[in-house]
């Protein structure tokens, strides 16, 4: 009889997954509709940009600088084997602007801002604040979630741009000031190889997409968390795992779409 149980159980799992996806889709549509109303109350969004963006600044800038340092060091060792150390600036700038900037920023963002969003909203739910809002005919999606979504979408591209810019400065410090590459070659090779629209524009589009993905995942997990301490803890963990996997897989798809087109 045990074997017969397997098939229905599989069916239940599959239906669960499907139902979850449908639920999340409706949640996102609802959220998008409500985010228009958040524009009419800009201070709610501004306060959230402060919480999400400003407070992430330190970790983003420190990581960007460290990544720039390491890229320049590793790049120099590899390039010096081919006598092409003048292209160090190009290597550092392209890898930061195209890939590392958006992706690492999104991963850090999921860990730094995503978790705090999930925990905050999960605790609001556990403390029945969201239910109380609904009792007062205030839609928690419009009042609580929408400003956070907008703030996430605005903050992420700015953070990614700062990450790349600081990373390039870090590469300059190691490459030019410490190793002694010619600064003219460093910048001119970079300027010849990096395209403002194809590389930087696509990098910004990427970080915008990641901003939407990370924030929506964090808000959904918080909003749907089981209203217990364990439930909130579990939802926070899920936020990090799902956002990270989503960012990496979206990055692959976006890179394939953006950079493999015949140019």
């Amino acid at each position, binding site marked *: 009889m045990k074997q017969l149980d397997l098939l229905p159980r599989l069916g239940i799992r599959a239906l669960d997954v499907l139902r979850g996806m449908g639920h999340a889709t409706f949640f996102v549509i609802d959220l998008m509709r409500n985010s228009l109303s958040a524009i009419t109350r800009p*201070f709610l969004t501004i306060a959230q*940009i*402060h919480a999400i963006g400003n407070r992430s*600044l330190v970790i983003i800038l420190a990581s960007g600088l460290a990544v720039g340092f390491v890229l320049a060091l590793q790049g120099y060792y590899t390039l010096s084997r081919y006598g092409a150390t003048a292209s160090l600036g190009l290597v550092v700038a392209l890898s930061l*602007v195209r890939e590392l900037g958006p992706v690492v920023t999104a991963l850090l963002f999921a860990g730094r801002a995503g978790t705090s969003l999930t925990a905050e909203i999960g605790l609001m739910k556990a403390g029945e604040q969201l239910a109380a809002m609904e009792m007062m005919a205030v839609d928690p999606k419009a009042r609580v979630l929408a400003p956070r979504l907008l703030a996430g979408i605005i903050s992420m591209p700015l953070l990614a741009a700062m990450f*790349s810019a*600081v990373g390039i400065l870090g590469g300059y410090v190691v490459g030019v000031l410490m190793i002694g590459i010619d600064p003219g070659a460093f910048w001119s090779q970079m300027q010849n190889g990096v*395209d*403002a629209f194809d590389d930087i524009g696509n990098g910004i589009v990427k970080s915008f997409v990641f901003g939407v993905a990370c924030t929506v995942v964090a808000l959904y997990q918080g909003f749907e968390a089981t209203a217990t301490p364990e439930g909130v803890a579990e939802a926070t963990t899920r936020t990090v795992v799902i956002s990270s996997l989503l960012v990496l897989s979206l990055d692959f798809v976006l890179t394939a779409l953006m950079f493999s087109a015949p140019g």
Partner: protein
Amino acid sequence: MGRKGVETLVGLFVLLGILAILFLALRAANLGNFVVGKTYEVTASFDNIGGLKVRSPVKSAGVTVGRVKSIVLDTKTYQGAVTMELEQNMLFPSDTSAKILTSGLLGDQFIGLVPGGSDKNLEAGSVIKLTQSAVLLENLIGQFLYNKAADPPETAPAPGK
């Protein structure tokens, strides 16, 4: 922290982000090197354009004077027709010749203009008639090997017998 303080900090954050984007666009990319101001277009046909791309620089004596605007294949002559934008104040004689050159051994390709001696200048829509195609490394190696094989045997180092 009051509302004013939060707003100021967020303003700083956004400003910093915009500065970062500007830094990337102007310092790391080539947006600063755009041909600004008025330009005029001239065309030239090449037997082979090699690795020339749209927005490759057009240089004269090593100084950038314009950019490649478009590259199409002329199906009448089967030559690559290159349209380039030159800065308005950069005037060249009408018998100027255009070459496709490579910066360094493996660098990007660009168009080099060598001015002629004519009294008239190139105007918008002019065609540069004297052109020299890109040098293809493959052809060069092929030619070299072909010449080597055609050499009479006595000039080759005599094998030790």
